[in-house]
């Protein structure tokens, strides 16, 4: 079994990279099912056209999430 602590082996700046890498992966990597239901995250709509989910707002969502995570950051509550 693969050790969980193997997951992130950042060469530089460990913790922040870990969170951003994880968010980047779950939001950008993987299969999309055509016809999925659209939802919003933290007030950021994940827009869809017709039956195809188009995650055009992912980069915006990622930036938004990052702001929320920053201590004393400007993220929305």
């Amino acid at each position: 079994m693969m050790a969980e602590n193997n997951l992130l082996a950042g060469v530089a700046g460990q913790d922040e990279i870990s969170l951003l890498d994880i968010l980047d992966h779950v939001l950008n990597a993987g299969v999309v099912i055509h016809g999925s239901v659209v939802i919003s995250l933290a007030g950021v709509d994940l827009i869809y056209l017709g039956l195809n989910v188009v995650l055009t707002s992912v980069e915006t969502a990622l930036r938004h999430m990052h702001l929320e995570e920053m201590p004393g950051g400007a993220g929305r509550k």
Partner: protein
Amino acid sequence: MPLLAYCMMEEAATGERPVAGVGGATVEEVRDSGLRCLFSRFQSAEDLSRIPAVESALAFHQVLQALFGQAGLIPFRFPTVVEDEGALLRFLREQAPGYTAELARLRHMVQMEIHIPGNREAGTGTLAATGREYLEGRQRQASELKAAAEKLRQAGGPSVAEWRQRQSGQGMRCYALLPRDGVAGFQQAIQVLSRSLPGVRLSGPWPPAEFVEVKNS
């Protein structure tokens, strides 16, 4: 009742699924057409959207990691929500040939990712006095990124089964596909080389999503 889909695995894949997933919802599974698919049910899509975004994404990631530690998988992009179990089954039955083949091909493989940062000034043209200088700066940056990526690819050695790279506004992203037992050697080789490549960062092992080649029909 909408379902949040986590990932697909081979139907015969063993390994325990996590008890709870996003929002504490039970992680369930369905096996059909040679695929094992894991998901959680929600009363409505709005219920899911009320969970804090980072918390949801991290819980999703934790489910994938728990499973990926035991067997190969292909993740769904977060948040992939389907209307009900019937919709999920239709997807699995329609797409089974492609995904079962890819799961078999990638069964023992993982994805490592390297990010090579670009020179921000060259990328935005901050220092360029003319359009020509700007374009030359962009061209120079692209060449430097490609050269760095090539060094990293070579450093990865023969355990790298496939390599992909993609230039973005922030630099270059490189993806290496390698067997699980090749991770430690790969990490060591990249970390040694990265001392001469400032800002390079390595992450993984991840599920090999970048190398899945199935077109949804």
